[in-house]
């Protein structure tokens, strides 16, 4: 499951079938990736400050993660929020569960909980992520 699977879902006519396709793709992505971040933009080029900070924390921990850009199709965000019962972007999932958005991830990063949740042995090199 990759970001391309979202890009390839049909967009000609909105229909319940197509929305379900997106929902299923999201559910599968969450299931199949140990760590996955739904964000605005990409890890190389985040499109918003909150997404950028969340990516920076994951990168500081050198955590492997999958990333999905929700910007190309507004239905991604819609279906994601329905699944996670969470209204904002970014959203970080680990082992199939919502860990949180930017605020929670940053709190956990600073407390060391994020490294633990990601199953990483090492402590962060710095106390706070570089911006």
């Amino acid at each position, binding site marked *: 499951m990759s970001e391309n699977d979202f890009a390839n879902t049909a967009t000609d006519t909105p229909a319940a079938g197509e929305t379900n396709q997106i929902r299923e793709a999201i559910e599968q992505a969450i299931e199949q990736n140990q760590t996955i971040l739904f964000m605005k933009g990409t890890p190389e080029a985040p499109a918003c400050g*909150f997404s950028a900070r969340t990516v920076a924390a994951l990168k500081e921990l050198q955590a492997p993660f999958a990333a999905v850009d929700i910007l190309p199709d507004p239905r991604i*965000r819609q279906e994601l929020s329905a699944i996670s*019962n*969470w*209204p*904002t972007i970014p959203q970080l999932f680990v082992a199939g569960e*919502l*860990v*949180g*958005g*930017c*605020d*929670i991830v940053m*709190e*956990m990063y600073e407390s060391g909980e994020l490294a633990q949740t990601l199953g990483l042995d090492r402590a962060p090199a710095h106390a706070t992520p570089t911006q």
Partner: protein
Amino acid sequence: MPSAEEIRQRIEAAIPGAQAEVEDWTGGGDHFKATVTAQAFAGRNRIEQHRLVYEVFGEEIGGPIHALSLSTHVPE
């Protein structure tokens, strides 16, 4: 678009015993930062605590309230 004061009032009205401090983060009226302390948060994890606050605003999050950054605490 709501003001920081209005957001504060709505949080405190909806979550019994809550004390909220809300800043308009960018001065533009749509990016807010709220620190909320409430006994109602006791026993809940961060996700559940934040959801309680987001639920006050429902569909407005991502709309007229473009961003609402949260910090939640249980009173000592």
